[in-house]
Structure formats: structure tokens, C-alpha cells
């Protein structure tokens, strides 16, 4: 469990406290019970505010690195601003080892000796063995704008893939203030409008043909594929999919004009909804989808990772996010 999942579990626990003590206060008219309820409500509003701020300070990204049979050293950097790599998924051979260095003006060694990739990354879901849930790196790796992550790979004899999950760090909160976030769930008088609830944000699409490289359309045939609009802002925390043999060409939050993923295999991002071990992959950090904003998906059929297998045509598929209303 990573830190924000623990925060959300805390939020759920506080909602249980608040609802129980509020009912108790209503039946007993005891000010002590009312105080317990109010304490729980204040704390849970602070937790959701802190989750909201944290999400607004970060721009979540998913990055796919293709490991060729020739190239053995890869350099990764993100948008020339400070960033964090939190977790990753790998599709590499069993005996492959990795060395990682923070490559800046001054080298910082991350792995002193080459280590098995399984020590650092989760395995791509669907393989028979190994960890199949995304787990965070031993420590989130933070890079300044002038630093890159250099990964050296040994013993890989065929094409492989690495998926890095992380976030860019915004220098400051531009147009968002505490007031904007608070107005989502509090009135001007400070009354709480609603409690956080679990929300699904699915994106439905289908492929017109099962030929590799075919672009998906919305189920109604529209070329643009959007998630439905939400009446409340949602903190997206997990993602799952019904189709694993396809590739995200781009996934964008249209409200923020922020690209979350580009040219990335679905299995490097989302869990298979029907898998043995987990049906949800956690996002590296929560993404705040503001009220009324939509996610836009461009999806391509076929997965080179799965020996060019394709997803069936004319069947509605979903890339589904799960989260909580802020």
C-alpha cells in the first residue's frame, strides 16, 4: 500500500467515524458526541484538501521505454522540469540485470551493483510467475530538471519493454488556490456539501477491425473517445482495462491539456480486469480530474508486446479509472 492509498483508507475510516457519531449525536443530543462528529469531519476535510493539493502539484505520466537487442544503455528524462519516478513495470527476460544512475552534473549511483530487474520493477501482468501488482520502487527517485535516469541493461537477448510511472513537479500552483479546492466540497459558510464517494471513470471504445494498427472509435462510431463528464471533481487513483492487446496512442486530460501517456502499451499501465492477482493498478500519484473535464483517449489495436495479438473488433472495451470524489 502506498502513501496516498493509506490516506484514502484514512479518509474512509474518518467517514465511518463521522457518520456513526453524527447519528449518535442526533439520537442523544449529547454535545460530546457532536464534537466527536465535528472533529472527524474537520479532519477528513483536511485530508481531502491535502490530497487535492498534492494531486494539483503533480502531473502524472506513464512512459514506455523500448529495449532493443542492441542498445544496452537508456537515458530517460521528462520535460526538462523536476520529476519523480515512483514505480514501474517491466517486460524483460528472467535473468536480466539493471544498473541505474542519476545522470546529472554529478553522477549519483542508484544501484551500486547490477540488480535483478525484479528487485525494482513489477512484472507485466499476464506472465505466469512473479509479482503482478505494481509496487513502488524501494524509494521514489527524484530528479531535478537537469538530471536524467540512465539505465544499463545486461543479459537481454530480445526486444523488451520498461514502463516508468511517475510525475512532473509543478513549480507552483498556477490558478488553483485553497479556495478553489475547498469550494468543491464546502459552501462559503464552511458547511460541508458532500462526503467523498468512490467513483468510476470508464472510457468506452471499440475497434472497427481486428487488424493491428487500427484506431479505435467511440462505441457510436465517433473518432473522438472521451470519458463521461463528472458532476464532481474526482481524484483518480487506480486503473484497469478489459482489453490488454492494444496500445494507448495518447491519453490526455482535456481540461488541463495534460498528456498522461503517449505511445504506451496498455499492460504497462492498467491491470487486466479479470486477472488472478489484481484487477486494479494504482496510479503513481492521484490525478485530479476537475468537475466537467474529460479524459481523451486515442487507442490503437494490437500489441507488439503480446506477439502482435489483437483485440476483437466491434466489441465495446473499457479503460476504466477508479477514484474518489474530492
Amino acid at each position, binding site marked *: 500500500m502506498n502513501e496516498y492509498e*493509506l490516506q*484514502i*483508507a484514512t*479518509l*474512509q*475510516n474518518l*467517514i*465511518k*467515524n463521522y*457518520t*456513526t*457519531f*453524527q*447519528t*449518535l449525536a*442526533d*439520537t*442523544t443530543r449529547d454535545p460530546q458526541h457532536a464534537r*466527536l462528529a465535528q472533529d472527524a469531519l474537520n479532519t477528513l476535510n483536511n485530508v481531502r484538501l491535502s490530497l487535492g493539493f498534492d494531486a494539483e502539484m503533480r502531473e502524472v505520466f506513464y512512459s514506455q521505454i523500448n529495449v532493443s537487442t542492441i542498445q544496452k544503455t537508456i537515458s530517460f528524462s521528462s520535460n526538462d522540469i523536476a520529476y519523480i519516478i515512483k514505480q514501474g513495470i517491466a517486460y524483460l527476460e528472467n535473468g536480466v540485470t539493471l544498473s541505474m544512475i542519476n545522470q546529472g552534473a554529478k553522477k549519483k549511483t542508484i544501484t551500486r551493483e547490477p540488480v535483478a530487474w525484479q528487485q525494482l520493477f513489477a512484472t507485466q501482468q499476464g506472465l505466469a510467475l512473479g509479482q503482478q501488482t505494481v509496487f513502488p520502487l524501494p524509494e521514489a527517485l527524484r530528479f531535478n530538471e537537469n538530471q536524467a535516469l540512465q539505465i544499463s541493461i545486461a543479459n537481454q537477448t530480445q526486444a523488451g519493454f520498461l514502463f516508468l510511472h511517475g510525475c512532473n513537479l509543478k513549480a507552483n500552483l498556477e490558478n488553483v488556490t485553497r479556495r478553489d479546492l475547498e469550494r468543491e466540497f464546502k459552501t462559503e459558510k464552511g458547511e460541508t456539501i458532500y*462526503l*467523498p*464517494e*468512490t*467513483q*468510476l*471513470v*470508464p472510457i468506452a471504445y471499440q475497434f472497427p477491425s481486428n487488424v493491428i494498427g487500427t484506431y479505435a472509435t467511440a462505441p457510436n462510431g465517433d473518432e473522438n473517445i472521451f470519458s*463521461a463528464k*463528472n458532476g*464532481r471533481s474526482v481524484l483518480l487513483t487506480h486503473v*484497469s482495462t*478489459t482489453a490488454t492487446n492494444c496500445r494507448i496512442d495518447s491519453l490526455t486530460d482535456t481540461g488541463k491539456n495534460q498528456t498522461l501517456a503517449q505511445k504506451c502499451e496498455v499492460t504497462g499501465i492498467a491491470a487486466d*480486469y*479479470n*486477472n*488472478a*492477482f*489484481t*484487477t*486494479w493498478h494504482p496510479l503513481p500519484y492521484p490525478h485530479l480530474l476537475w468537475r466537467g473535464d474529460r479524459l481523451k483517449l486515442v487507442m490503437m489495436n494490437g500489441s507488439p508486446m503480446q506477439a502482435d495479438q489483437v483485440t476483437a473488433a466491434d466489441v465495446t472495451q*473499457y479503460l*476504466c479509472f*477508479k477514484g*474518489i*470524489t474530492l
Partner: protein
Amino acid sequence: MINLFNHTQLTQDERRLILARAIASQPYFAALDFEVLAGASKDSQYKAKLEVDKNFYITDVRANFNEILNETGTEFWLSIWQSYAGESIHKYQRTELLPPSFQSFEARFNIAFASQVYCDLQQEICPYLVKKGNSVLAQIDNLGVKAQEASGRIVLAGYYPTGKAYLDERTTQSINESLADEPSIETFSFTVDEAGQKSYILQNDRYARLILGFSVTDLETNKANLASSLLKITDFARKIKFNDVPIPIEYFAPRLTCLRDTHIYYLPVEAFFEPLNALRFEMDTDLNGGAGFEFTMVTRKV
């Protein structure tokens, strides 16, 4: 889940808060059943309804649709919504059908190692209020091949805030004795090795405790010989029922075979186990040629 907030390093204040919540609420499990007929064709839809007569907070949804998929090849998609509020409990377009795994976790009955093709991890949602007088409706839609006869089921686990509870002098004294002591985890268990209807009692000692969750260890590893059982739980002293209608045991506790599986399903909220109180577990068991199972209840001294 409550396991994250119940451990032996709790402070006195945290312990009192959890205790106060346990006394003023009760866990509850409500089942919605769908009897799927043999030979039902693709796109057959089934609906089920649950009437709610007290404010009910849903904290997790347990289902068996992946097991049906695994056993029969029939895939169902699911939607769950609250009738009068007119909204899906997942806050997504009211009656839109989605794969059940997006909305529920699997109540795992099938313990055969090689057959684990679905997730059995307990997942909790933010408590979702179904107001007194409202009802919850669920619909499933057969997407796949012709259905074989199957019993589709979702169980909505959650809690009722019960308001003020009466504590007698002896209970209060016992709570104070427990609070003066260190919190400790203790399990209670019994073995079910007889078929048919039978009641099992778990008796508390003089300490006030909180019930955290349940676990089941089957005494068989052969899937064909796994016992199945319907369970109803009643608290004698507090006169509360965890469920009104008997529910298969896998909705209360996961089947335990190997270490990488989930072992315990935790309750939506801690249940207060009064000193010298007894819990009655009414079971209707079918041994299926096997030796039965061991049922374990995990508790913490308040």
C-alpha cells in the same frame, strides 16, 4: 479497511474512539440474488432489489461472477444503483453495465490453486449512504455464451449506525479493565465437520473485545470435496444480526489454501463483543464428501 487501524500499538484515545464507534454501529451484510436459468440466451437480463429500512452505508461489494465465468464460460456485466436517489453507487451513469470486477471483489469459493483466475483481494469503497426507505437495485446482463444454471449473487457489506447503545455496569467495568490492559489480538474458532443445519456458539470471556474479521481453512484440498455452507450470524446480547438471510460463507471469509492469497475478510466496522456474550453462527453445511472446515474469528481486546 479496519485492519489498518486496529493493532496492538494504539493509544488510549484511539482505542476509545474505535470502541465508541463499535458500540454505536453494527456491520451488516445484504444479499442480492440472481437465479440464472440453464440455456438462457445472450443478453438475458436479471434484476434484484434490496429494500433498506435504516440508513445503510455500503463499504464493499462482493460477488461471484468471475467464478461463474470460470466454471461455465458465461460472462455477466453488472450495474448497481440506488432507486430514489437515482444514482449508481459508483457515481457513474445510473444503469450503465460494466464488468463486475470494476465494481466488486470476488468472494472466493474455488480454492484450487491452478484455477485462481480472478482477484480475491478485499477492496473497500468510500462508505456510500443508502437512505432509510430507499432501495438498491442491481442488474446483470449475460454477455457471453448461453448460460448454464448458476446462482449469481452480490453481497453488499456495510454498516448501520445504531445510535445510542445501553451498557450495563458490568460491561462498563469490563471495558475499563480491558482499557487498562494492553490491546491484544485473539482468535476464536470452531470446526464444522457435520452436514446439515447446526448452530455453533463462540463465547467471550470477561474482557470486552472487538470482532475484526473472519477466516476459513478448508480441511480438504480437492476442489470436488470442498464443503459449502450458508451462514447467519447473531449477537445474543446486543440482539443484532449480521445478516437476515443466510449467505454463503465465502462472502464472510475467504477460502485459505496458500500464503499468497487473502486470509481474512475484515468487517466493514468493528463489532462490539460484550464480555461473557456469545455469538451464534447458524450454518447449513454440505460437506460434499470432504472433512469440513475450520472457521476462525479474529478479535482485539478493546
